[in-house]
């Protein structure tokens, strides 16, 4: 039982390059989230989805796009990477109701 899987785990990009982070879950959860973690700033919400085909902006959405074409997958895209997007990215999921978040292992992205 994999739970929440993020790929890739590590990536180095040059400024202006694009990439996509994939979050896949096998728990049949409705809600999915993308957070970024930066030193001294905790976890900040980038985008989230309350179901297949729906997405919404979080606290820090600029420079990112997302898609939820299938219930089990939530993609986070960077169209033109910037050094300010160097961070650790976490995907999280949960069931309906005020349940706990289940996290992936995180993806460390470095933009040079």
């Amino acid at each position, binding site marked *: 039982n994999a739970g929440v899987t993020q790929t890739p785990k590590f990536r180095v990009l040059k400024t202006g390059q694009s990439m996509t982070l994939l979050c896949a879950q096998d728990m049949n959860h409705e*809600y999915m*989230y993308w*957070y970024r973690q930066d030193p*001294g*700033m*905790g*976890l*900040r*919400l980038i985008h*989230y989805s*309350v179901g297949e085909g729906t997405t*919404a902006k*979080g*606290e820090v959405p600029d420079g990112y796009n997302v898609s939820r074409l299938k219930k089990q997958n939530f993609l986070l895209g960077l169209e033109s990477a910037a050094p300010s997007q160097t961070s*650790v990215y*976490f995907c*999280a999921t949960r069931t309906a109701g*005020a349940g*706990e*978040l289940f*996290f992936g*292992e*995180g993806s460390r992205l470095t933009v040079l």
Partner: protein
Amino acid sequence: AQTVTQSQPEMSVQEAETVTLSCTYDTSESNYYLFWYKQPPSRQMILVIRQEAYKQQNATENRFSVNFQKAAKSFSLKISDSQLGDTAMYFCAFYPGTYKYIFGTGTRLKVLA
């Protein structure tokens, strides 16, 4: 705006001792949920304990317990009999029921042998 504040960026405790991590939050909601997550050096986020605001009884999970003071909007985590494996970053999180979870900035705890 709803916020979560963890005022202790770093703490240390001797093995087998007790330590308390503080968390305060700001909300006008009456029903909500609070969580403590642990992030060890492996980076994985692990749920430690959760508390529903409508429950007066403080949650406990083995060596972990909380002191939930609703009126004071305080949610501290007590770790008893600290172990080396408790060394981690601890995040307090607040869920007001609007899809979004709000996290504090974290407290880095080091357990000393």
